[in-house]
């Protein structure tokens, strides 16, 4: 059974329409997406003692380390097979073989994600075959006393050339590869729910855990970056080699076939859920993320579909606090403001719905993904909110910039790269999405769940107050 988003279509008389605009230029200017390997590396860093090994040039690892480090301000440890000219001519077999062994011997990890790139795919490396050979060699080595146990490491090949897809699809491929390679068939049920979070922040995975805790539902996160990308500084707890903290364990991944169901909270990350449904008969729910009031409601109802839980008073009170805030401030400060939203497709979808709930207009939504479900979701939201939405699909930040300069926009929601547009147009910017590198605290706090929606509402309202209300005016007195 596959549940799809069922936002009601008949709630408004003044029905909104969407106007989808795709990129016409051949050129891309300031992309809103990046390569598949980044999504795969992100996913593997959410596995306990998991190491991403990028089979490609050093830029393929070093750029990603830089990008993730400046957003999360955390150590981002990624290994690389250092492909050079000789590999381009003779193939990269030696590189990946010795790379896996190097990590297996020096780090003794639980899992290695062997992530392909443009170069290793173009030269035609059979990474699946190479990994198999290497595993056999590790097994032979393990017979020696000093290398005992070396073959326990799971090595998962992840095919992610950058000339296909985006970092979203790369994440999807990685999670699916983990399930295909690690998950074991089972007839048992363990009462748990699998959650595939997508590329989100640790603040959000922690919020999902908080919600599941209040519900009394157990979940396995595929994968779980909550501690890896937001880790305590406690030198006394560190040991060498350094591994990112937390993460889903290999044993937990083995067992996800025993779950009551899988919920994917970003639609682009659905393959893993589908594999679990078709191969292991674990029901799948493919959904928009719980951003905003109704999406969070929906998320809770979906949990209830899969497992027998009551919504506790504590969660209803969190909902009530959000409703209280919206009731108190939305009509007065936010009503009818035009909002421009840019970022990852599923996050933007959730954000657009929240903006509608606040009585604002999601005037334009923009994403770098070419996934058509994005426009379909926007159609439903336009109907629900009753405003027209311009949908910039498969677009770049330049298109968003020109749109914002040409139209009446009151507030922008997007990543730190929008700061230039903010300086120039003076349109207030609420930082949202990836990467957010010029403010602190964004990634470690939630935008999901009732508490996340409350935080977003506060951020949006404060930005409106700062921009549109004279600080000395009597209107601000009460």
């Amino acid at each position: 059974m596959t549940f799809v988003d069922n936002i009601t279509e008949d709630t408004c008389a003044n029905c909104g329409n969407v106007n989808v605009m795709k990129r016409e230029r051949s050129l891309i200017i300031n992309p809103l997406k990046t390569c598949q390997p980044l999504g795969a590396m992100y996913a593997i860093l959410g596995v306990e003692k998991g190491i991403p090994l990028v089979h490609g040039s050093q830029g393929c690892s070093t750029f990603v380390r830089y990008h993730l480090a400046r957003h999360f301000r955390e150590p981002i440890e990624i290994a690389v097979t250092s492909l050079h000219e000789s590999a381009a001519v003779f193939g990269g077999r030696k590189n990946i073989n010795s790379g896996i062994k190097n990590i297996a011997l020096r780090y003794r990890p639980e899992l290695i994600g062997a992530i392909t790139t443009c170069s290793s795919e173009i030269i035609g490396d059979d990474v699946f075959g190479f990994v198999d050979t290497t595993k056999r060699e590790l097994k032979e080595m393990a017979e020696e006393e000093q290398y005992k146990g070396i073959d326990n490491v799971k090595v998962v090949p992840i095919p992610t050339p950058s000339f296909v897809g985006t970092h979203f699809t790369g994440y999807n491929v990685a999670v699916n590869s983990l399930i295909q390679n690690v998950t074991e068939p089972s007839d048992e049920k363990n009462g748990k729910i699998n959650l595939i979070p997508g590329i989100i922040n640790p603040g959000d995975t922690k919020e999902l855990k908080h919600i599941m805790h209040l519900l009394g539902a157990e979940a396995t996160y595929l994968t779980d970056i909550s501690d890896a990308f937001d880790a305590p500084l406690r030198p006394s707890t560190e040991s060498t080699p350094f591994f990112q903290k937390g993460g889903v364990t290999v044993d937990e991944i083995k067992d996800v076939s025993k779950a009551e169901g899988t919920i994917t909270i970003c639609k682009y990350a659905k393959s893993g859920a589908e594999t679990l449904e078709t191969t292991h008969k674990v029901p799948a729910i493919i959904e928009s993320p719980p951003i905003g009031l109704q999406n969070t409601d929906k998320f809770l109802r979906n949990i209830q579909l899969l497992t027998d839980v009551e919504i506790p008073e504590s969660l209803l009170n969190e909902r009530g606090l959000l409703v209280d805030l919206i009731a108190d401030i939305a009509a007065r400060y936010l009503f009818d403001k035009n909002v421009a939203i840019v970022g990852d497709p599923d996050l933007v979808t959730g954000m657009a719905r929240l903006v509608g709930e606040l009585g604002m207009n999601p005037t334009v939504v923009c994403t770098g993904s070419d996934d058509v479900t994005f426009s379909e979701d926007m159609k439903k939201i336009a109907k629900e909110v009753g405003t027209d939405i311009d949908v910039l699909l498969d677009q770049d930040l330049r298109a968003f910039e020109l749109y914002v300069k040409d139209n009446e926009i009151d507030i922008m929601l997007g990543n730190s790269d929008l700061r230039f547009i903010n300086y120039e147009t003076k349109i207030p910017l609420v930082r949202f999405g990836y990467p957010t590198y010029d403010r602190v605290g964004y990634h470690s706090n939630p935008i999901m769940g009732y508490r996340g929606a409350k935080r977003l509402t506060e951020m949006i309202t404060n930005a409106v107050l700062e921009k549109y209300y004279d600080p000395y005016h009597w209107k601000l007195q009460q």
Partner: protein
Amino acid sequence: MPYKLFDVNKEIPERKEHVYVKHCNDDDEDIKCNTSTIPGCMTARGCVYAGSKGVIGGAIKDVIQVVHSPVGCTTYGGGAKRYPSQPNMPDGSEFPIDNFNIKYVCGTDLKESDVVFGGTKKLKQAIIDANKEFPYATAIYCYATCTTGLIGDDMDAVAKELSEELGKDVVAFNTAGFAGPSQSKGHHIANNTIFDRLVGTKEPPKTTEYDIGLIGEYNIDGDLWVIEKYLKEMGVNVLSRFTGDSTHDEICWMHRTKLNLVRCQRSATYIAELIEEKYGTPYLKVDFFSVQYCVDNLRAIGRHFGLEEEAEKVIKKYLYPIKEELAFYKEKLTGKKVYIFSGGPKSWHLSTPIENELGMEVIAVASEFEHADGFVKMKDRVRQGATIVDDPNTLELEEMIANDKPDIILAGIKEKYLVHKLGVPSIMIHSYENGPYIGFEGFLNLAKDIYAYVNTPVWNMLEFDPNSQNEDNNIDNETISNGSKQSAVGAGK
């Protein structure tokens, strides 16, 4: 034997020759460097494309940067460096977009079909689109990446054709990511390309007897503007900058300078040598990191042009105001142990100044991509017992920290947050914390950042202490008072 095999390297013994400990009885063995990284290491090195776009081409302010790649390399090529630019152009006009070089990055967004059928058609269209989008740009630079290197797109042919069609320079940099052991190869290729394609193709509006080229200065956090200010006040005219805050045209008339100053000697000595060879222009290798090097080199430039008095004036003007504050930091930092993990040459630029002018002990230096000549300088300039590492990886850094317990590490963003987790402060030395770090005031900024990081009170509060004395006693505790914030200016005056 000066070589050292770290414990973490016993499975990869070939790393031994990349690690060197300086002893009095050193033989002349070289440190192995500029070779391919061992697969499976957590290296901080980048790719060849990173060296050409990220360092050389991307700093120029009036050029459209087109990355011929699937989307990833384009995304990473944007916003990766902190080299601001001002809109002023050599002819006195203003470029319509400020910081154009850090605001926009373009790419061809190659897909699977392009990989199969070739990407040159898309590259052509992308360049035409780019020119339409930013018609005021002076030139268009295109960069090869792994993909376009492997599928064999003839970017030079496209560049030639479109240069004629658009009436402006379109330059192809053949810097496929895998085409060398590190980003250093990208610097080299970009130097050669710029020399072959551009230098000597335009003439400056006017020249003087005091025209210099400032080569290998990329204006990280405004470094270039500090040096440029000193030179200007001495009466020296910076005719061409390679490539911080530079314009395309001044690159084209680099052959008209009377003297070239080479600041980053790893990434840009190539072009100074080529210019000397072809045009006879001499070059000086210069160093402005720290007070002493800055004084020495301003004097050397003064001597070259007969501007000795002017040089002294500049030195006096900018050295005097920082002296007292710098002395304060030296007093506070004396005896602190430090590592310098640089990308290229900063390890040997900074080791002596940090020892002599800040009183710190440089106990290890490392470089991602320096070559043999740079490692010779590192060896010369560090103290006995110091460790020198080529292309260090994370495990090695962990072992070093466990053994040495340094007080601070100067490194990059990839090391910084790991080092913090181990309880050691770290500042970014590739990009900076609060730069500029060059020149007199820049060195003061560096000292201040080091001091701030070392003395931030948090380093004394890392762990919960169940047996702590009561708070009142703690106020007199030496560790706390060492850690407390003191104003350098207030203390000095």
